[in-house]
Each structure stands twice: as C-alpha cells, then as structure tokens.
C-alpha cells in the first residue's frame, strides 16, 4: 500500500536539516510519497522507520542501470503512464541486432555511422543486441568481443549457460544485459548474471508465467531485471508491454515494475518501414530497449526526433545552444537574423531561412528557451539581451555585415536597439516564420 506524505512525515525526525536535499521534512515526505525520491536519502531515519517505509515507498518501477562509464544508461524508474501526468524519466534505448550469420564488421560500421547531435543530445545506437544462434561458446564470445569493441553497451540474447558465461567473461565490466532467463532455466541464468553483476533479461510465453518467474527471481534475491515481451506476434508484444507497465504503475504491482525489451527486428523481420512504425508505437507505449534489425539514418532521424520530443520534461523547454548558425553557406558578409533559443522556434525559423536560399547568419541568443513573445514579456528577449549577446559572442569581430533582422513580433524593440547598437542597421522582420521565404528573397 502506498503511504501518504503525512504518514511518512510522522516517521521522519522533523529536524528540517536539509541533508536530503529538500528544504523541510514535510517537503521530503511529499516527494517520497510521489515516488520522486527514495526514503534512504534521509540520513536520520531510524532502522524501524526505514524498514517500515522502504517497501511501502519504493518507486513502483525500478531503475535499472546498465553499461559503464560514459556509456552508462538508466532504464525504467517511471512513475506515470503518460507524459502529461508528470514527466517520463528514462528514454528508450535502441539496439541493433547482431548474429553469427551477419557480416559483423559491415553491420557494426553501418551502425556507428549514425551519430549526430540534435538539440544538445547525442543521437546514436546505444546498444548492440548480440543474439546467440547455436554457434558454440567460443564463436559467440568472439562475436561479443567484436561488438564490445564498438564501445556500445551489449545485450546478450542467449539462453545457453556456457555461451553466456563465455560472453560475460569478455564483456561483463561494460555492464551488459544478459537476456536469457525463462521459466525453465531462470535459476541457472540468474546465478550467472548475479555472479557477473549484470542485469538479467526474463521472458515467458504468457504474462502469468512471466509474473511467476519474476516473483521466483525476486524471492531468490535478484531484483536487477529487464522483462522481454517476446516475439510471438506484434499484437502479443504490444499487449504485454502495455499490461506489464500498467500493472506496475496503475495497479501498483511491483513484480512487474521493471523496464522492458522489445525485439522489433524479430516481430517485423525484413520490413524496415514497419520496424520504424512499431518503434514509434513502442516509444510511446512502454518499450525500454528497442531492438532493430538495423538503424538507418532515415529511421534514426525520425525516431530520435520523436523520442527527444516524448522524453522532454514538460517543465523544461527544449533549448538550442546560443551562437551563430550560418545558413545557406553564409559568411561574414551575410545579413544577420536573430530569434530566441526555444527549439521549436529555432527549427521553424531555420527551416524557412533555408528554404529562402538566401545566405544569412542566424543569431540565437539565450532567451530561457521561451518563444518570442513569451520571452519578450518575461524580459528574456530585449534590446539589452540582444546587445549583450552580440558583445559576449564578439559578433562584431566575427561578422562584417551590420544588418540585423529582428522578429516582427518584437518590432517595438527597434528604437531601443538602434540606441544600444548604433553601428547596426536594425530591420523589422516578419511576424510569422512562413512569411520569411518571401521576405528574405525580397530583401535580397
């Protein structure tokens, strides 16, 4: 049973020492009740209180950490089913599937090609799913070694104990997932995973069998698990993914409170477009690790964009880095255009400027990630902030052109900007981005 903030508060020392990071014990208790922090953040809880609380206040879904060093990733830890209810915390990760039948070098090389930055986030295939297909322990370990050499974290899809041991011997320091437990072998696989200190993937034909297997693993002390929804069919995988997450978060059944693995490559084999479509579905509906046959740039551009959107914190706007963004091969003599750092504004404005074909330097100043009018109303976009940006980024040294086009919605800034930037020619641009193409062409 979940406890209320007040019930938890009664058990705290009520010292308001702030050591937990919250301003008061009451605030801390409220956060614990929501599942936002764990009870052990408070250093002054008595043993009895801790024991009483830790089970009742444990987050409904565990956070599983995989990988190591820079490649450490978190899975799960969600508290809500929909992003509008609060926020989703652990973005889904992508894996490319690799088997002995593949040309491993070519496949891994193609995978590492997709690696780019989008609004401050590195977009790449975080994981490699190395699937055991009966080639023998040594051959499998060699394949695993090759995959590990990419530096990416591995998922070892392997239900064979000897092959799993051989594979873990070469990669266990890198924090792989051993995905190989099922109702008939879970004891042996759990022992192997626990010894190597890695997360264990569990699967079963039915949800009932999966539930019983997870319960047995938990009873044996292994709570470092990931649940594989299986490959019976697309419909079955979707149903399992939804039901597992709903049981954990809505019905508060912690036995299913683990992240999931969905092997999209297996349920839509040979159909890259269908895999992309399904990856979108599982991004929204409860896939944690999504395994694809391949990840082409085309798939990545759409899927990573979607994932970045879905996993943004609704309370934190998406921002682009302030700076100079040359468009259409602009140089120091090209006209300057300025707008705010709200990612959506940036994308729309830069897209339209590109369509105009006119070379220009887009200057993005720090406006707190707000849209033009909101930033202006909040004082984050003013003649002062733009002048400060131009000074701090030494625009005058970097660009010779002295014409600056400002958003039409803040035309009111023109006079003040002329006063603050006397050697610049301030031009009022359009109120809507769609009008920019015509405006830029006419201006030219």
């Amino acid at each position, binding site marked *: 049973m979940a406890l209320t903030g007040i019930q938890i508060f009664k058990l705290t020392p009520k010292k308001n020492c702030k050591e937990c990071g919250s301003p008061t014990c009451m605030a801390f208790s409220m956060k614990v009740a929501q599942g936002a922090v764990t009870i052990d953040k408070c250093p002054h809880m008595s043993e009895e209180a801790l024991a009483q609380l830790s089970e009742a206040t444990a987050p409904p879904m565990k956070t599983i950490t995989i990988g190591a060093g820079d490649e450490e990733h978190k899975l799960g830890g969600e508290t809500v089913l929909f992003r509008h209810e609060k926020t989703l915390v652990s973005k889904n990760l992508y894996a490319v599937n690799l088997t002995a039948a593949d040309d491993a070098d070519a496949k891994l090389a193609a995978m590492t090609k997709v690696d780019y930055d989008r609004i401050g986030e590195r977009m790449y295939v975080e994981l490699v799913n190395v699937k055991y297909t009966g080639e023998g322990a040594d051959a499998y370990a060699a394949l695993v070694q090759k995959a590990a050499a990419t530096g990416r974290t591995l998922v070892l899809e392997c239900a064979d104990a000897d092959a799993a041991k051989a594979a873990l011997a070469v990669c266990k320091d890198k924090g792989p997932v051993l995905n190989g437990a099922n109702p008939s072998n879970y004891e042996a696989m759990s022992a192997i995973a626990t010894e190597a200190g890695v997360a264990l993937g569990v699967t079963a034909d039915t949800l009932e069998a999966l539930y019983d297997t997870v319960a047995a693993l938990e009873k044996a002390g292994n709570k470092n698990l990931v649940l594989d929804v299986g490959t019976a069919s697309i*419909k079955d995988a979707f149903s399992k993914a*939804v039901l597992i997450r709903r049981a954990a978060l809505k019905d508060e059944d912690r036995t299913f409170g683990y992240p999931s693995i969905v092997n999209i490559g297996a349920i839509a084999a040979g*159909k890259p477009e269908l895999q*992309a479509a399904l990856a*979108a579905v599982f991004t929204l509906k409860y896939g944690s690790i999504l395994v694809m046959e391949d990840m082409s740039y085309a798939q990545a551009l*759409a899927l990573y964009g979607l994932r970045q959107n879905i996993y*943004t914190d609704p309370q934190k706007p998406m921002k682009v880095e302030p700076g100079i963004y040359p468009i259409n091969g602009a140089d120091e003599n090209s006209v300057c255009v300025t707008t705010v750092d709200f990612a959506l504004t940036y994308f729309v404005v830069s*897209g339209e400027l590109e369509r105009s074909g006119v070379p220009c330097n887009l200057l993005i100043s720090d406006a707190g990630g707000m849209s033009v009018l909101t930033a202006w109303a909040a004082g984050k976009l003013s003649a002062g902030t733009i002048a400060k940006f131009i000074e701090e980024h030494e625009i005058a040294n970097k660009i010779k052109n002295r014409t600056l086009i400002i958003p039409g919605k803040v035309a009111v800034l023109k006079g003040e900007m002329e006063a603050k930037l006397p050697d610049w020619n301030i031009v009022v641009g359009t109120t809507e981005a769609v009008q920019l193409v015509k405006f830029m062409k006419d201006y030219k």
Partner: protein
Amino acid sequence: MPFKLTPQPFKAAIKEVEVGCGAKAIKLGGEKTFPFYSFDAEMPNAPKVGVEISDLGFENEVAGIKDFYGDVTNVVEMAKKAAAMEGADFVVLRLESADPNGVNKSVDECAELAKAVADAIDAPLAIMGCKNDEKDGELLVKVSEVLEGKNAMILSAKEANYKTIGASAGMAYGQKVGAESAVDINLAKQLNVLLTQLGVKGETVVMNLGTAAAGYGYEYVASTLDRTKAAALGQNDDMLQMPIITPISTETYGVKEAIASEDDMPEWGSQETRAIDMEVVTAAACLASGSNAVILRHPASVATVSTMIKELM
C-alpha cells in the same frame, strides 16, 4: 499471488462516425479503450488510412509517388489510382489551387473538380481546403453543396470559419464536419461546443487536433491526443468524444529530414526513404495515442501503416 489479467474497458465510448456511402463506407471511432488495447475490449472499428492527393498534381513529389501515379494527367484519374492504393481506406482531395496567394482558382471551378472526383470513385472522400481561412469559408460551403448525398468529410472548420462550414457541411448538406484546432485540448473542446451550439450534431463531427512532424514539437501533439482520449473515455466528456483524424503528410513533407536532397546531405542517404520514415513514424505515433484516422501520401507509407494497424488489431 499469481498475475490475473483484468480487462479495464471504460464505460464511455468514442462516438462512431460513418463517412462515405455503400460497401466502401468507413466507420471511425466507437471504441471504449485506449488505441489497440484489445485485451480490454476489441476496437469495433480499426483506425483508417487516407491517401492525400493535391489538385496541383504530383510533379513535385518524391519518385515513388510520381511512379505510382505514372502517366496520369488529371486529378480525377489520380483519385481513382489513390482509391485503389494498397491499404487505402479513403481519399483526401486537397484543393490547394484555391489559395489566393497561389493559383487562386475560383470556388466554382474547385467545387466542380470535387464533384467529378466524388462521382469517379466509390471510396469515401474527404476534402481539404487551401488553408486560407477566408477562402475556405466560401470554398468548403460550395463543396458541401455539390457533394450532397456523398457523405463526405469536410476538412476543416476552424474557429475563424466554423459558422459557414458547420452550417453547410454539418446541417444543410449532410456531410461530416472536420473541426480543426491548434494542438490544445481546450481549444478543441471549445470548437466542438461552438459547433454543437450552432446546431451541428456531435455525431457528425470529426476532430483534427492539429499535428506536428516527429521531432518538431510532437510532444504537444502526443499529450493533446492522450489527454483528449483520457477525458473522453475516463471522464465521459461528451464534447471530446468525437473521433480524431490527423493529417500527417501535410506536415512531414515540409521538414528538413524529408526535403533535404541527398546531394546536400550525403550521409543521410535517400531522400525518399527519409520522407517515408518520417511519415510512418509520425503516423504510428499518432495512432498509438488515439488518432482514429491518419492521412498519408506515399504508397509505401500507406501500405506500412495499414499493415501495422491490422497487426495490432
């Protein structure tokens, strides 16, 4: 204690709206669950896929679309091919040429074309305006009139022009009214209230809650869809129980990922593949959050999304 699956269907349901006539007519909505939650209750009507064609033809489209329409020389023939496309449930004719800032064809000329298309195909038809609110206010009224008896879907009535379009399409000529709002649950509800107060029956309205391509502020679309379905089903909100139609291709073919040429972005690979992936990913995301119909352009996208729907049903 073993795991026991308890179906959790809602008591409320999405309204069922029929579009088109005869054997090919389609029904949107009717479900009592979140999309594809077949373990709670079967969805009575699978989500539908529409094929978008423009009255400006297809010469600016990617190769796969051009190849599909081949040597077709007029819009009526194009509509016939679109109706026969694998996975297509309905055809969407976009009257782009009416745009006063573009070709600026007359209302009568456009309405005549809409009539010719409707007469040539037996698949259900939806008509999209030119996105100029004022012109659409006249154009869609006329289109509703000439399509009387076809049970077409008129896209869309917005806050600026809902009175004329709502009255003609929804009341005088028996069409279905698309109610378009801009990615905000309150605006969507307000428009439905306004249309209902005008006298349009809730059962003849389909909502377009607005759309964005994946990566371009799509989080607002996802949350608007999620919240709308949650309010319609969970809180039995009568003014949000209309089925949802989401145009996808009109957004996705405008973003950089779909329009940058391979010469400009060699590492991105084929422009056509990018355009298809952008289209299917955005459509699949909308369907996962509750769209009852999506509108697409590329034959490969239509086939893929239609297959996905069948697999999930």
